[in-house]
């Protein structure tokens, strides 16, 4: 067995890695914003925003990501008469998906903060906004970190499912190569190593941040 296949495979996978990273980073970033807003709404007492958030979370949690991707790629453009490229759909699907799960994480973290913290801060003359940013969010963020990173990891893996709508991320690039070359063992082993390295970096970052916050 030679390793000359790497000459063609590696450049393809590096190409795919770029797209995987783009979709994962943008998707998770937007998802974190959505999740923070919805999580905040969920623990508040505005019935309208709560209902909106709950409905969104329900739809995302109760449908498979692959179906959401297919829907976004094939159905939404027809319904709205617009054009959507697969990368855009991919980012949106990852964002909406991670956003739904992050909402629950954020809600739990905010509800986990002792209400006495807020009362003490208010009694010192702080505004609601000051209480939120200086007193509630720091410990809530610390408490949410493990679950958040868990979701980040899942979202990175979820990008592999986007191969179904021909997003040329790592997995899809690998599949293309394997289909042409029949080198399945080599290809999928290399892909696995790519993900292993990528996610290990994320895990190391998580451990670093957690150590710093202690």
């Amino acid at each position, binding site marked *: 067995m030679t390793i000359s296949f790497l000459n063609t495979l590696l450049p393809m996978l590096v190409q795919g890695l770029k797209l995987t990273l783009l979709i994962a980073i943008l998707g998770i970033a937007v998802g974190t914003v959505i999740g923070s807003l919805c999580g905040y709404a969920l623990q508040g007492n505005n019935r309208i925003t709560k209902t909106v958030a709950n409905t969104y979370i329900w739809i995302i949690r109760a449908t498979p990501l692959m179906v959401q991707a297919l829907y976004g790629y094939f159905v939404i453009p027809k319904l709205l008469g617009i054009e959507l490229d697969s990368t855009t759909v991919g980012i949106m699907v990852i964002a909406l998906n991670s956003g739904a799960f992050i909402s629950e994480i954020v809600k739990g973290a905010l509800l986990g903060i002792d209400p006495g913290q807020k009362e003490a801060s208010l*009694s010192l003359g702080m*505004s609601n906004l000051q209480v939120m940013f200086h007193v509630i969010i720091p410990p809530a963020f*610390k408490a949410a970190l493990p679950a958040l990173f868990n979701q980040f990891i899942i979202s990175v893996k979820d990008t592999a499912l986007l191969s179904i709508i021909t997003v040329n991320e790592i997995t899809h690039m690998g599949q293309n190569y394997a289909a042409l070359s029949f080198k399945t063992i080599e290809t999928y082993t290399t892909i696995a190593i790519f993900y292993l390295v990528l996610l290990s970096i994320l895990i190391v970052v998580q451990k670093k941040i957690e150590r710093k916050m202690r």
Partner: protein
Amino acid sequence: MMNIMMRVCHLSKRFGESEVLKDINVNIAEGEVVCVIGPSGSGKSTFLRCINRLEMPSGGTIHYRGENLVHEAYDIRKFREEVGMVFQRFNLFPLKTVLENVMLAPLLTKKGTKSEVRKIALELLDKVGLVEKAHVYPSTLSGGQQQRVAIARALAMQPKALLFDEPTSALDPELVGDVLEVMKNLAKDGMTMIVVTHEMSFAKEVADRVIFMADGYIVEEGKPEEIFVAPKEDRTISFLSRVLPAAG
């Protein structure tokens, strides 16, 4: 005649069906130390929390500096900057050091520059005997030390008055003394204080006036020697007979 600082008139509070405060009338004078005693569930905490509007009263008025603060339009933050509160469970900020705990509110409410606020904070920590703990985190302190930090934190706003809700009830008995000592010194310095407490000896020694509450009413009030030695109302008598060690 002393100056009246707060006038509470016909204050009431209900939670749904249950009426927790019924008709509270009381004036607090400048420099006065008022201790509030009474059985569990009588509405003592709710009374304090209505004063700084952690709970919105259902009725009545509370006048402070000529303004009624029982009013959505009243900017309660002004009042809270001037009247601090100390809680049973301390409620220190766990991710901030002792010094940061004391400095946070004065900085956010622009009570001074960072170095001014820091100087005052360190003086206050010295006053409560904890200046050497300035840079540690609250979780490393005993309950009594945490409560003294909480008092310093309230004092850092340079308040005109302080509300205490059972400040020593969560403490091991041997730690109560240090906290009461700090409070006695505040009283001596002329701080206006409303103290909900089960520490009858503290009330006897420090209070200018004792208020006995039961069932959402002020049943009886008077100087400590009146309330503790010659209570008039049956409810006061039976409550005191339960909480005071038999007279020797």
